[in-house]
């Protein structure tokens, strides 16, 4: 007999675009840029960079590790702008309709040349950093921010959400790069 209560489904999580392995990359990017303005990635990554440098209990004890993460985050910031351009170019009408902030996006880091050819930025990122390195570095960076206990004001409530979106950007970059060069 139906008792008016929905059947309880155990061990089930609603579908999320970030965990969809076979979903469309453009659809995923759309969700990323609905959730975050391209400037948000740059702002948060700049802060993450600094926290990683300050935190003594992190993977960045050695000077070379610190140099690597500084270069990686700088490239990731540029990548977020490049992926925005790729998404905007592919789905221009949709982008302006769905994203209220689409018209306000002002790129901060890409040069004129890079803006004209964002695929070069993606290519540079994918050639410079292996997918494995990028995944681990992003996790180390997240750990450094989570374990930071110093004086700087850090809102830790949305760290995982930001990490998931950054991770998706990295995934999208390798996917686009792979398709472009049919690797």
């Amino acid at each position, binding site marked *: 007999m139906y008792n008016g209560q929905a059947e309880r489904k155990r061990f089930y999580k609603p579908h999320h675009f970030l965990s969809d392995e076979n979903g469309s990359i453009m659809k995923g990017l759309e969700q990323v840029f609905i959730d975050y303005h391209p400037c948000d990635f740059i702002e948060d990554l700049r802060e993450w960079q600094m926290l990683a440098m300050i935190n003594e209990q992190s993977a960045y004890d050695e*000077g070379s590790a610190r140099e690597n993460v500084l270069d990686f985050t700088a490239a990731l910031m540029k990548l977020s702008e490049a992926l925005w351009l790729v998404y905007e170019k592919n789905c221009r009408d949709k982008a302006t309709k769905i994203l209220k902030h689409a018209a306000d996006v002002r790129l901060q880091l890409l040069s004129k040349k890079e803006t004209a050819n964002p695929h070069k930025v993606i290519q540079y990122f994918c050639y410079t950093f292996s997918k494995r390195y990028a995944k681990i570095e992003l996790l180390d960076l997240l750990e450094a921010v989570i374990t930071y206990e110093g004086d700087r004001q850090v809102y830790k409530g949305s760290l995982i959400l930001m990490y998931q979106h950054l991770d998706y950007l990295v995934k999208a970059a390798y996917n686009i790069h792979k398709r472009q060069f049919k690797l």
Partner: protein
Amino acid sequence: MLHKEFVNNPTAEELWNLSKDSVEQPLKAIYQFFDTYGLGSPHERLWQMLKLTLSSKEVNDWNEVQRENSIHFYEMLLALIKSNYVLFLKMRKEL
């Protein structure tokens, strides 16, 4: 405001660090700086300097406070350069 008392009452030694020219024409230095470098270049140079510092072996032995202080100094200096650039743009308009 760590050094408020020094800023309000500069010591003789601090004043000696200023040349006669920079006391009489402080704006000249701002013009000279941005005429030479613009805004993008100082930003990039300062970042490279911080990056080299933080990537060095010596910093391995720094504690959190020392690292935080150097980053704080970088951020304040960057903010100072940016504000001076706005001043520079305003002054140039008035010419």
